[in-house]
C-alpha cells in the first residue's frame, strides 16, 4: 500500500466493526430469527454458510480484477491483493463447502450432491488451490506474478462455463430432492443481511491487513538483500 498511515487507521476500524457486527449477528441468529419449522436449529448453519459462500465468490472476483489491473499497470500491490483474495476465497469457499455439506446431510440426508452451485464452488476451490500452489513454485518473483495474474484472469473467465456445465450435468440426473421451501421469512432475511454485512466488513479488514503484511514482508526481505 502506498499510503501506510491510511490503511493502518482503517484496518483496526474495520476489524472492530466486523467483530461487533458478528457479535450482533449472533443475537439476530439465535434470538431474533425464528427456528425453522422442519429443520429445527440446524437451519442456523445457513447464516454462516451463505455469507461465506458469497464472500468467497467475491474474493475470487477480486483476484480476477486485481490480476487484470496488475497485468496492465504492473503494480506489485495488485499482485499482493490477488494473492490475499485467493487465500481468503479458498478459506471461505472451503468453509462454505463444509457447512454446506453438513447442511445437506441434515436436510437432504446426503453429504454431496451435483448441485450446480456446490460443484462450481468445489471446482473454484480446486482452481484457486492450484493458483496458490503455482505461486509457491516459481522462483523468479516477477515471472511468478505475471503468470499467476494470467491464471487469475482465466480462472474467473471459466466460472460461467463451470456453472453452466454443472447445471446441465445435473439436469439429466433427476433431482434427488425439490428445491426446498419457498421464500425466507422476513426475520430470517434480516438476519441473513446482517450476517452478510458483518462478514463483509471483517473480510475487507482481513484483506487489507494481509496485503499490508505482505507488503511489509517484501520490504523487510529487500532490506536483507541489500
Amino acid at each position, binding site marked *: 500500500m502506498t499510503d501506510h498511515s491510511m490503511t493502518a487507521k482503517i484496518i483496526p476500524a474495520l476489524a472492530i466493526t466486523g467483530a461487533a457486527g458478528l457479535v450482533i449477528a449472533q443475537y439476530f441468529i439465535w434470538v431474533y430469527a425464528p427456528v425453522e419449522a422442519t429443520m429445527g436449529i440446524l437451519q442456523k448453519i445457513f447464516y454462516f454458510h451463505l455469507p461465506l459462500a458469497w464472500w468467497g465468490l467475491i474474493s475470487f472476483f477480486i483476484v480476477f480484477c486485481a490480476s487484470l489491473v496488475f*497485468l496492465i499497470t504492473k503494480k506489485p500491490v495488485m499482485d499482493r491483493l490477488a494473492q490475499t483474495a485467493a487465500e481468503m476465497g479458498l478459506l471461505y469457499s472451503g468453509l462454505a463447502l463444509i457447512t454446506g455439506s453438513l447442511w445437506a446431510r441434515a436436510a437432504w440426508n446426503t453429504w454431496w450432491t451435483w448441485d450446480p452451485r456446490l460443484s462450481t464452488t468445489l*471446482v473454484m476451490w*480446486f*482452481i484457486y*488451490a*492450484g*493458483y496458490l*500452489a*503455482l505461486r509457491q*513454485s*516459481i*522462483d*523468479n518473483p*516477477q*515471472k511468478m506474478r*505475471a*503468470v499467476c*495474474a*494470467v*491464471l487469475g*484472469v*482465466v*480462472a474467473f*473467465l*471459466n466460472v460461467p*462455463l*463451470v456453472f*453452466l*456445465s*454443472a447445471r*446441465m*450435468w445435473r*439436469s*439429466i440426473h433427476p433431482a434427488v430432492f425439490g428445491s426446498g421451501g419457498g421464500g425466507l421469512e422476513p426475520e430470517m432475511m434480516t438476519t441473513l443481511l446482517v450476517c452478510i454485512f458483518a462478514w463483509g466488513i471483517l473480510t475487507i479488514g482481513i484483506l487489507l491487513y494481509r496485503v499490508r503484511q505482505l507488503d511489509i514482508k517484501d520490504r523487510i526481505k529487500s532490506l536483507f538483500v541489500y
Partner: protein
Amino acid sequence: MTSKDLKLIFSDGSGIIQPILLGLILVFVFSLSTPIGEEVSAQAAASIFWLATSFALILVFNTLYSIEETNQARTGLLLSPMPLQHVWISKAFTGLILLLLAQLFFFPAIIVFLGQENVADWWALLGVILLVDWGLVAVGSLLGAVSQGHASRDSLLSVVIFPLLIPLLLAGIRMGAHLLGGADDESLSSWAGIAFSFGAVFTGAAIILFPFVYNEY
C-alpha cells in the same frame, strides 16, 4: 515452427510414446474395475477416454515447451521479429496433432478393453473429438510454459490445468457417451455449445495473455 517441433518430437520418440503408453495403461487399469461379464457404461468409457487424453495433454505440452528450454532457444524466439502469438498457435497446432495421434491409440483401446462397439455416428464422433481437443490445446498451449524449469513440472501443470478443464471434460464425456450409444440425451447441441465457448474463450484469452506467460522477466 510446427514442422520443427514435430521433427524433434519424432526424432526422439519419447515425447509421443510416453503419453500414449500412459493413456493405454489408464484404459487397461480402468477395465479391471468392472466385474467380468458386466458391461462398462458408455459414460464411463467416455470419461476414461477424456481422462487419458487429459494426461496425454499435460505430457505433450510439457515436452513441447521444454524443447525451447534446453539451450534457451526461448530467448531467441523472444528476440525474433515473430509475434509471440505465433508460438502459441504453433504449439497448439503441434499439440493437436500429437493429441490426435494419441487418441488414435486410445480409441481402439476403449473398444477392446471397455467393450464399446456401437458407435452411433463416426463423423459426429470425430467432430466432437476435434471440438473438445481445440479447447484442450488452447489451454495446454497457454499454460504449458508456466511450469518450465520446475522440478516436478508435470504434476504442477496437472494441478493448474485439470480444474480449468472441468467444464470442457464434462462436455466431452456427455457428448462421447451419447455417441457411444449410451445416454440418450437431447442436449447434445448445448454441450457442443459449452465446448465451443470454452475453446473460443480460451483462444481469445490466450492470444491476449500468452505473451505475459512466455516473456522473460
